[in-house]
């Protein structure tokens, strides 16, 4: 007998229907039918909430590392070289583009602003990248660039929610939660979905990695850069490991006595919860010990001795190695309304080497093939200047993201924007399409991965999304 809520819920559904059919003189065999009718789309795999599950078809990626660049990086200064924009610096954008256009701050009289940095071509693929991204350049042939991303939002919190939960409204499960719901976790020592933050907090806050209407076990667990890696991981002052083990042994035995009397499966689940907490007390600090990595690996990432994006990238790899399904890094630093030049320099100095190192490190361990790395923010930035000539506003009509590993083409460039980086002119990829593609790589048909809440079968991709087949190997 497996005591767990998922199974209980499942058997309860069929059993509560049993009375119904018995009373109504209907044979038992139709129960399954009714249960099907009522719970269409529930993956309904028997077993623990977090037990590993098989997706719809063989996955290319077993895990995801999402490097979320909060604040929205400027595609124009980093990825999408636009010589024409340099030429038209100071001119007004074509009026035709501005019909029905909304940015956040700037007015229609804002003039175009040429890219702030030089571009060079990298790798066999010849991807043009800003001079601020030399490290990414070195791994360009392992990366799949999407230069034609589009989103619906122009403000940060709704934009981040759309990118991370598929909806601009609060209350929906995050991409990580969907992944965990679909695939379960492959570790019993660590949470299946871990969140690491650097720079500042993100605009949409914990809703970016929440579970929405799904069970709490699917929510991302933040690992902290300072203090306990997981909140309340440390015992109260004076309680050493032995006292803790003694206490938990007593607690377990007492709870087992309760279980014997009450027979409540939730008690069994609670016993397991406390045991996993104990395991986490050992595994989380071990995970954080980046000093155990050889110097050759540490130096790949940059300075991992202090909290920050570099250390988080290394931690992401360690988490992936330990079976964590979904790791999401939040680096909220890219909102360059002003200070564009220095802000980008600093951000790239902080993130370029570690992100590239993550790809190289995964590759040298043979993990890149089944690990999908995603890099990007909530939207792009305007080709027009905000303020005088050192800032850009929010822009949702075109931006760049990149993917690596996990079943996507390598050294591939997809999509194209117009000559000033304003609109997508070829192969648009909406956020929903990106989500559909990520789910596809994880082995899911995004239209069939559903969760019922309030009588409705919700999808990550709402009523949209298409798998971008061109990106796949």
């Amino acid at each position, binding site marked *: 007998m497996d005591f767990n809520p998922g199974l209980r819920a499942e058997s309860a559904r069929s059993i509560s229907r049993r009375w119904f059919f018995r009373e109504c003189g209907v044979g038992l065999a139709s129960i399954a*039918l009714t249960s099907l009718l009522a719970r269409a789309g529930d993956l309904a795999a028997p077993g623990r909430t977090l037990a590993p599950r098989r997706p719809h078809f063989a996955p290319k990626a077993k895990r995801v590392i999402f490097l979320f660049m909060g604040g929205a990086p400027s595609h124009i200064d980093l990825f999408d070289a636009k010589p024409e924009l340099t030429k038209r610096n100071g001119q007004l954008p074509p009026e035709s583009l501005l019909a029905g256009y909304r940015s956040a701050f700037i007015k229609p009289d804002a003039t175009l602003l040429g890219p702030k940095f030089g571009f060079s071509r990298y790798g066999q693929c010849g991807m043009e990248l800003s001079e601020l991204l030399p490290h990414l350049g070195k791994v360009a042939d392992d990366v799949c660039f999407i230069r034609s991303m589009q989103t619906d939002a122009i403000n940060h919190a709704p934009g981040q929610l759309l990118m991370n939960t598929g909806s601009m409204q609060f209350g929906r499960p995050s991409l990580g939660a969907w992944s965990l719901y679909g695939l379960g976790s492959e570790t019993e020592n660590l949470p299946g979905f871990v969140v690491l933050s650097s720079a500042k907090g993100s605009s949409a806050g914990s809703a970016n990695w929440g579970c929405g209407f799904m069970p709490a076990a699917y929510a991302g667990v933040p690992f902290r850069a300072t203090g306990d890696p997981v909140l309340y991981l440390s015992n109260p002052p004076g309680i050493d490991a032995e006292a803790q083990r003694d206490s938990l042994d007593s607690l377990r035995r007492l709870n087992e006595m309760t279980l014997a009397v009450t027979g*409540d499966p939730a008690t069994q689940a609670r016993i397991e919860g*406390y045991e996993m907490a104990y395991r986490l007390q050992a595994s989380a600090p071990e995970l954080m010990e980046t000093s155990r990595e050889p110097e050759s690996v540490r130096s790949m990432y940059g300075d991992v001795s202090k909290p920050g994006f570099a250390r988080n990238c290394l931690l992401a790899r360690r988490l992936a190695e330990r079976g964590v399904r979904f790791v999401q890094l939040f680096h909220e630093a890219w909102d360059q309304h002003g200070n564009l030049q220095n802000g980008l320099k600093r951000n790239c100095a902080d993130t370029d080497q570690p992100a590239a190192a993550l790809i190289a490190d995964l590759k040298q361990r043979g993990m890149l093939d089944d690990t999908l790395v995603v890099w990007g923010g909530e939207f792009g930035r305007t080709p027009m200047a905000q303020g005088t000539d050192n800032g850009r506003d*929010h822009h949702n009509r075109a931006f760049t993201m990149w993917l690596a590993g996990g079943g996507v083409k390598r050294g591939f460039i997809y999509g194209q924007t117009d000559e000033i980086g304003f609109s997508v002119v070829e192969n648009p990829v909406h956020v929903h399409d990106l989500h559909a593609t990520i789910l596809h790589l994880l082995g899911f048909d995004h239209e069939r991965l559903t969760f019922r809440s309030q*009588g409705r079968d919700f999808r990550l991709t709402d009523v949209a999304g298409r798998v971008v087949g061109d990106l796949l190997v």
Partner: protein
Amino acid sequence: MFYDRRKRGVQSAHSPRARRACRAGAMSLFGMVSAWAAEGKGPDYIRDIRPVLADNCFQCHGQDEGSRKANLRLDERDSALKGGKTGEPAIVPHHPEKSALIERITSTDEEEIMPPVSRKHALAPAQIELLRAWVGAGAEYGEHWAFRSPRRLAPPGRGNPIDAFVRARLVREGLKPAPAASADQLCRRLHLDLTGLPPTLAELDRFNTAYRRDPEGAVNQAVDALLASPHYGEKWARHWLDAARYADSDGYEKDLPRQQWAWRDWVISAINRDLPYDEFVIEQLAGDQLPGATEAQRIATGFLRNGMINEEGAVVNEQFRIEGVQDRIDTLGKSVLGLTLQCAQCHSHKFDPIKHTEYYGLFAALNNTYERTDPVYSPEQKALIARLETQVAMLEQQLKSAEPDWPRQVETWAAEQRRAAIPWTVMSPKDFGWVDGSAHPDLLPDGSVISLGYRVPNGELFITGEPALQQVTGLRLETLTHPDLALGGPGRNHLGTFAITELVVEVREPGAKAWRKLELCHATADFADVERPLEARFRDPAKEKDREKTGGDKRRQGPVAFLADGSDETAWTADRGPALRHTDLQAVVQFAEPVTLPEGTQLRATVKAGHGGPDIRGLDANFPGRIRVALTQVPSPVADLLPADARTALARKPAERSAAENAALFAAWRACQPRFAGFSAEIQRVRDGWPLPHTTVLDLTARRPREQRVTRLLERGAWDHPGPVVEPHVPAFLHPLRPEFDTLPDRLALAKWLTDPASPTTARVAVNRTWQAVFGDGLVETPDDFGVRAPLPAHPELLDWLAVDFMEGGWSQKRLLRTILTSQTYRQSSAVSARELAIDPQNHLLARGPRFRADAEVVRDIALSVSGLLNTRIGGPSVFAPIPASAFAESYAEVDFWKIAEGAERYVRSLYVFRRRTMTDPVLASLDAPTGEVSCVRRDRSNTPLAALGALNETVFSEAARALALRTLREGGRDDRERIAFAWRLCTARLPRKAEIAELERLLAVQRERLRGGWLGAREIATGSSTVVPEVPAGTTPVDAAAWTIVARVLLNLDETITKG
């Protein structure tokens, strides 16, 4: 085309596993169908057929016209019989072989088969047979149970009707009810259910004694006593706060703290005084529209205001206002109607009969509100204000007695004032905004510009227009109040006042490129403020750091001359003081020379707001919230010296003035008379004593007739895709709006309609939610969805009986709870055998008592209560829990307001723990407390390691363990065995069994050994610090305290401690 969602339909599909199961199900269908045939009836539409159609067909053949294919509806019998655009009937009753429906679902042609292959919905053979059998039996449709008003059925037996209904079902199932719970268990259960706090040992003893004598009497008495406890309101308020998405912060990226606890306290009070549920709902929806609305009824409308507020820079206020109204409808749907209204925000509901337009009919009823922030005064403050008002009235009375012919004097003076009034022409703004676009203001019909959304710390707000006058001599800048501004405005700083650094006026003649700045002179205002340094709150800390050396922040504020003195250091402020500050104000500047404005000349007035603090979150913004510009051609114009209320009064004939207007006029008159200067100074002195409100509340009122909004249907729910105009109306499939409500304001009519006894869902939803709180699951499993896709209830007759009894019993929750808690069903033991568990894992049949982990707040309150730390203060501001510093890294905006509660304040009930939406309290969140971002009427009950870590290690839980240890040593008896019994009983309400005692004795012994041996630090464990010597009760040692702390920590984490069983 940017993106077309309409081209893509909602799809869902079945798992392969379910499909296999479905095929298995088909095998016995033959038997099923022949059984129906024998009975002469087919499958039941509601139970068997509609779920199939809903899952597979209604997407394209349901009520949503937008996505309907082939003009065919299958959700209505008439339409199905008529057929779609082919003209062929989809269903021919009794003739499956002639029915296109059956033909299409059984087709082998990939082009023909339904659902289409692209839908990825294959009908299972069993489903096909079900449909065939149904058509064969006549294809009768039926009405969804929850959309029919509940009927009171006679209970099938005597005694408590709950027991009668439940027992009747158990008999049919061949099940027996569980034996009664022990008195201990029952006592604890009652306490946790009614007050959310465990019983004290004295209460346990009393109950046990009474129960032995007379179980019925004891239960009745306990229920009555607990219902009368003020803690009852705290426990049950929490359930409603979930539904009402209550939180103490605004949400979105800034997630600034808000004051909303006055509303929370209103809920506690309403529940404690058992405000009938219909009134409870009406007051929260439209308390302000009730005749003679009280302050409390106005505060109640805070329910609608609990949603989030986005003050991200550059947001379009209207977008988030509309999303806010949609959130209100979602909340009403989940909490009151039990319907998933949200679906109809974008299109007609796919399953439930709610149309897209009907959604906006509800929207229209909620759309015409002001989003107010109102002051709330404490009772002491109210008394003070009453005293001060009396003093002012007495002083004015003295003056009136001394000047018996004052009415004549006032009128003479008023006539003079009217004659002297300067004609002003309001300039209609052609363009307006913040120069850097950091916020987007809105234009109001009277030509004023209101700045909502982001509170710009420092910036420049401009209005450009084409003046109608040919020549102008001066400009009037009004700073106006508005109900959408906090406290009414006119400013947007914390007090509702403002500072204007400089007013710049420029013109641009037709053809000219550059703006020409006009020279301003002689500024006047209707209120003279005194010159002083800028209020400390707004000063720049960076400049203030070396105040001694540099003189600090040099900005000053005060007289209206500062408005146009060319200096960015000085600002005009006009604060009439706490009693009168929320009033319209005006300043007038003269142009050095009259300005000629050839036709087409543009004039731009720029208000520089440079006297705010540097806080980018906007907490120290200091600018006017609503401004208006007017021009005149009268030579040497000056500001009207009268306050705004007197100006309004002046415009009316004496006979038409209200008492308040007469008073305002009198006050203005007396203030203008030099001979009354003494009186006026005296009155001002009284008014200076006015208190600042001890808190504020977000609430709402109806918009003025001239500011009514027109509601439009929104395509795909998007604020910027307005469709046709929609008038307020209610969904047709529910009960009609009573004609007598027609004369009521829309929002009040909606509230009355929602709580009409004819409403099929309102009472059911309310009793179901109460039931859920007691039993863990509702009679309907989905408290937020009573629609066609909701699982059928296990006890439909009981639900209806309770709903009708609830309404007929005056919508009294206390009465409802009394009925539930005195039933034998409730009083059963919760122990379950493996066999019973297999039959009814979720206890829907109710053959045993409830058992589930208590809600987050209850778990924490149990620890506080048994340890003796609990502070039982009721209501008041929320307190900041001791959260580790690292948790604040999650926050986008700085969190400098988190002043961790110390001492007794830290130990108030968990209901009062500050809830910040984007940074949820880690302990409460780990135990499934909702974030408050959306309405939540059903909490998950998870078992994560994070919850375990919180209850083991979090600061307050650790402090509770130490306190419980000391309490046990102090009160628990002479030896460990007695103490174990004492502490165990505190935590679980029962005495420990032998094995349990042995386990704890062993734990104590081992820990004492290690403590004595120096392996563990007694001080550290017992006090949290190795340098603090624990104060232990006489006859005990620090080692005892430490060993007991370890034991207490185990006790607080026992399954039984945190479970209501």
